[in-house]
């Protein structure tokens, strides 16, 4: 219901920069997730939006009006907290009614609104229960109902699902999205859970070290990450070091072999880059498809198989011949359908091809001295299952 702008917002705690120069516009009725590891500044940004922290510099603007210096109770933003923060001395009804009572709404109107919201969240039967008599999922629904009861211009959700168990979490996130679309509320969702962010957001803001790493739709963030950080943080990603042969022609080389990738790279010739490819996009050669001319293939030995349900992930140690390194230390994650995983037991040799269409090359910023936490961007290591 409101358009929210954050302009060059910065916050320091002592010497530590928590949020640096954060700028973002969130359109009316949009759901935007702030996604990042703990300590990346996402919650601080949310708290500055709500008014619980004052930015050192920058502005928070709602519908063109500067609210930077307004106290939280004058901002008209609804907030849902990580630990629910329901008032323990009030029933579900009274919790939801609280904000309306503060606004001196007529009693009849309040009651009607409370009943309507409890209905919307499937809570009608717990209206007279106190928080300690409700389950975690019910408490969080009451917290949501309470936050939207005041018809906030902006709804702020601070890790709202982290305290509920996995099954309820999935139900609730669908419910949050349904409610958000139905009520058309401009919403910020802070989360460290990528599946949560990808599944219900219009846009995802990936944050790292107090700054925006990347902003995009869930599809863009997943399929076309612009940075190694995003690539590593969202899902599993293989990073294969390459050297650019021709940036204009989209030609790179790995292990002495050249490969064409789709489109121009925007990288200088001779520059180091990282070829990014998801485990499910690496195709084992020799199954049904032969290696096509121009495709890069990698070979290695399967070290571990991990069953993931429909697919099985193979961790493959790339051979020295394939990588051009000696000794080769790179592990590749390759997802294959579980039905055919038996063909590649641990210890067997595997050749995979990288389809030119699905691979992307980005600059390898570590070699340029850029600040990227390598430990955070490595392919997630699957635990040793003792296979």
């Amino acid at each position, binding site marked *: 219901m409101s358009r929210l702008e954050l302009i060059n917002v910065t916050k320091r705690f002592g010497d530590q920069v928590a949020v640096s120069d954060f700028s973002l516009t969130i359109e009316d009725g949009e759901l935007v997730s702030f996604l990042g590891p703990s300590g990346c500044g996402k919650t601080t940004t949310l708290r500055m939006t709500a008014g619980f922290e004052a930015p050192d510099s920058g502005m928070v603007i709602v519908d063109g009006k500067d609210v930077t210096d307004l106290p939280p*109770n004058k901002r008209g933003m609804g907030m849902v907290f990580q630990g629910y*923060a329901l008032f323990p001395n009030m029933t579900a009804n009274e919790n939801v009614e609280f904000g309306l009572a503060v606004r001196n709404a007529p009693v009849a109107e309040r009651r009607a609104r409370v009943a309507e919201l409890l209905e919307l969240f499937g809570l009608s039967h717990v209206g007279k229960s106190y928080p*300690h008599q409700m389950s975690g999922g019910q408490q969080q629904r009451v917290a949501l109902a309470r936050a939207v009861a005041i018809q906030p211009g902006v709804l702020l959700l601070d890790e709202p699902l982290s305290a509920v168990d996995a099954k309820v979490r999935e139900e609730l996130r669908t419910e949050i999205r349904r409610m958000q679309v139905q009520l058309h509320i401009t919403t910020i969702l802070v989360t460290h859970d990528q599946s949560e962010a990808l599944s219900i957001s219009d846009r995802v803001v990936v944050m790292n070290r107090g700054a925006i790493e990347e902003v995009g739709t869930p599809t863009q963030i997943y399929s076309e990450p612009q940075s190694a950080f995003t690539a590593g943080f969202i899902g599993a990603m293989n990073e294969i070091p390459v050297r650019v042969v021709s940036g204009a022609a989209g030609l790179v080389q790995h292990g002495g072999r050249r490969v064409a990738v789709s489109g121009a790279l925007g990288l200088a010739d001779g520059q180091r880059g990282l070829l990014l490819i998801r485990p499910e996009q690496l195709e084992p050669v020799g199954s049904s498809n032969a290696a096509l001319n121009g495709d890069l293939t990698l070979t290695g030995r399967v070290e571990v198989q991990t069953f993931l349900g429909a697919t099985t992930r193979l961790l493959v140690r790339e051979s020295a011949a394939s990588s051009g390194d000696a000794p080769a230390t790179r592990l590749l994650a390759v997802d294959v359908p579980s039905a055919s995983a038996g063909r590649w037991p641990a210890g067997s040799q595997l050749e995979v091809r990288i389809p030119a269409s699905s691979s992307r090359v980005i600059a390898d910023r570590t070699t340029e001295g850029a600040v990227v936490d390598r430990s955070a961007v490595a392919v997630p290591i699957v635990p040793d299952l003792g296979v």
Partner: protein
Amino acid sequence: MSGTSITGKATEETLPAVMAGAAVLKTRKRTNRGPGIPLWAIVVFGVSAVYFLLPLYATAVFGFSTGKHFTLQPLWDGLSDSGFQTSLQLSLTYSVVTTVLALAVVAPTAYLVELRYQRLRSTVEFLTLLPFVIPPIIMVVGLENVYGVDSPVNLIASSWAPVLLIGGYFVLTLPFTFRAIDNALRAVDVRTLSEASASLGAGPVRTFLRVIVPSISVGLVSAALLAFTTAMGEFTLAALLGYPTFPVYLLNVNSFQPHMGEALVLVSFLITWAGVIALALVARKTPGTQVVRGALM
């Protein structure tokens, strides 16, 4: 030899019997005591009970007699004594005012310390402990110097004088009231609850009265109880500042009419206990306290 064999026989026969007997004794003891209550606890309880109840018993025996015979006459004399009524009224009034003042000042202070001024916590804690370090007698001397007849702010001779006594009572209750309220505040997530309330549009005062106060009601009840009983039983300040409160009256009566005095001591004891039980019942009925009880169970 035969003696030995007899002894041997006896041992053979008696040992199992003794053991069986011991086992029976053991089981009996267990069933008598109920499960899980160890002997030492019963001993400690018994000794404490005697320690606390014996003086009460002695007071009752002395209070309800004229020296030789049991009679309730001293009690009736005491209850109908005008001094008893006026002094009790005075004490009740001052204690209620002190209790209200203590809650009204300490609760918001402790809330602000917890919410915003954490770095002042140690200072505030130290200040509230001062009454333990500075005895009431010193406080009286100080009050008389600052507000006495020689002072430009001569309260002692004015109609404002009760302010000094209530102020003194308030200071004496600080160690108890602050701790009781502070513990209750620490048990709830004051910051998040306050933020939740603010996000719903409530200002600080409404947040405190509607959200925080009900959440810490148990702490407030114990603080009230401690403040009330401290003020009711206070002697030094009242006696030295010249107020005939109930404890002062009791001491006077005890000197001249000891039987009546002791009978009234029992009355004051019952009044205090009635107050304690009433407050405990109130605390039980407050919805927010169910959380605390749930957590304990």
